[in-house]
């Protein structure tokens, strides 16, 4: 009536308890990884995710190209006489604007990722607590670098010339990536604070649009009304755009660089701890 032959499932090999037992024999546990090493490992995780889902690079390739082309030809003739002349002013600014805009995807990915079971495991590991978040941002730093290189290439094709040469360009990109890394702690905070992906996106838009447009990215602030100048001249995005523009032009605008670094420090100091508080409570 009943035969007790076990049906072997085709694809799944049996568990080998003998070799399992050997593996379980407690070895000396390796020392805990350093904060930096744990963060790098999470950065590696972010890169693996890009490897498995390369479509997510769309926002750091197609989107920046679109931004450069769109604004160069849209405003170039009216603001500077020709697109070719305008791009000399616009490129560092649009680079800053696009990369700062791209940072907001960090919040969305944190928000969708944090609900997954794997975070329970990460949070139960004896590692430096912020390393998961730092890892995200390290992965994102790679994305920002890709976006910068793409935009610079398009800009050069359109006629942009960086008088600062290779060192100026590299320093400009480095400053931009560093600032974006610091600024992203706002998004990790929102990603952990808000309940749905949609609300994260909504809030991000509310922050990012005024912050990036109300700056000196497109035009000289001197044409703006006084009250707006007051905001624009003190915006971190303006300082960053001025610093990057200066570096790429071969100047070393120490004030603007210092302002940018100061803002970056402030973002980490304020939003870093808030993020970690939310992370520990999740």
């Amino acid at each position: 009536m009943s035969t007790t032959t076990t049906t072997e499932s085709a694809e799944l090999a049996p568990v080998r308890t003998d070799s399992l037992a050997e593996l379980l024999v407690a070895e000396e546990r390796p020392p805990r990884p350093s904060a930096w090493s744990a963060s790098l490992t999470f950065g590696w995780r972010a890169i693996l995710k890009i490897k498995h889902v390369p479509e997510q690079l769309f926002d750091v390739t197609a989107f920046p190209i679109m931004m450069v082309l769109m604004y160069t030809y849209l405003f170039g003739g009216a603001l500077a006489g020709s697109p070719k002349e305008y791009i000399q002013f616009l490129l560092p600014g649009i680079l800053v604007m696009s990369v700062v805009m791209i940072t907001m995807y960090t919040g969305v990915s944190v928000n969708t990722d944090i609900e997954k079971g794997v975070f329970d495991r990460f949070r139960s590991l004896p590692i430096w607590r912020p390393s998961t978040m730092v890892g995200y941002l390290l992965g994102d730093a790679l994305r920002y670098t890709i976006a910068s290189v793409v935009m610079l290439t398009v800009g050069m094709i359109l006629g942009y010339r960086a008088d600062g040469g290779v060192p100026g360009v590299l320093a400009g990109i480095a400053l931009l990536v560093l600032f974006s890394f610091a600024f992203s702690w706002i998004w990790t905070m929102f990603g952990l604070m808000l309940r749905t992906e949609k609300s994260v996106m909504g809030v991000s838009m509310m922050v990012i649009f005024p912050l990036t447009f109300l700056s000196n990215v497109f035009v000289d602030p001197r044409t703006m009304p006084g009250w707006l100048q007051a905001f624009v001249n003190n915006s971190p995005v303006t300082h960053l755009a001025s610093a990057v523009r200066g570096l790429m032009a071969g100047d070393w605008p120490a004030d603007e660089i210092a302002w940018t670094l100061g803002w970056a420090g402030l973002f980490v100091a304020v939003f870093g701890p808030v993020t970690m508080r939310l992370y520990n409570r999740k």
Partner: protein
Amino acid sequence: MSTQTSGLAIETAGLVKTFGETRAVDGVDLTVPAGTVYGVLGPNGAGKTTTVKMLATLLRPDGGEAHVFGHDIVREADEVRGRVSLTGQYASVDEDLTGTENLVLLGRLLGHRKPAARTRAAQLLEAFGLTDAAGKQVKHYSGGMRRRIDIAASILNTPDLLFLDEPTTGLDPRSRNQVWDIVRAVVAQGTTVLLTTQYLDEADQLASRIAVIDRGKVIAEGTKGELKASVGAGSVHLRLRDAEQRPLAADLLRRALDARVQAEPDPVALTARLAAAASHDTAAEQAARALSELARAGVTVDNFSLGQPSLDEVFLALTGHDTRVSDASDTSDTSGQDDSHDPKDEVAA
């Protein structure tokens, strides 16, 4: 700072966790000796997962205290994290990464250098029969494979205490048995396991001590034997050749064994539950006597078995409600409800 001297893996006192109005965990006291499998048994929503999450330092308790190997789970959370590992109810691995990548990632996070992490990952995948799937993203794994990679991730560094939160929920019976084999292998090497489950036979199979938890409270605790003894000594299951003889058989059994006799949905099946201390005979002796009574009365028995009471019965006896609240279980007590008559020993000779 006594760490191991107590010999206790977990000790909690009055552990409480509230979510808004609900007290998900309402004063849980647990004492788990090191080196054993401790089962926490209860229906959905009883507070099992919340308890485990507190002990694994993922949730802060709102009241009471708990120590894992002598370390306070709040003040010494980092010490606790160094000695435990957690396999959650939902796969606690990254679904976007491959099996190998997941294990290497965790190996690195646990402090292994890359070559060592790679070797360990390959060995674990091999032992868990996942070598063929090593390069596939975990989201393409079957339920059984996910469970395996999940447990593999938990034992990358052999933990002193492993939390298994409903490790076989949703698995087919075969995968379930394999997870059980894994658990047994892990315990054999000295790891303490805290296993939560809503499957009573799972706790029965694996755990040496069991806490039954319901609505955030521990309602019973003890060895399997103790828990079962609180309900009865065991049951005799019979299948008769002729359904017509069932009332007669039930009557005979009730008198011969002084037992609650229950008619099963199958019209020829009967179960007699032996009372715990009704007799100084062993359950086997009582059963033998019952069989001879039946034979003398001309009742033909096709099939006979003697079993310990199931934990389902334990749960029912302890809580007064079924393990599955919504689903009225199919045990219809049609006869033998009457267990009020006092145990008269009819031991013959």
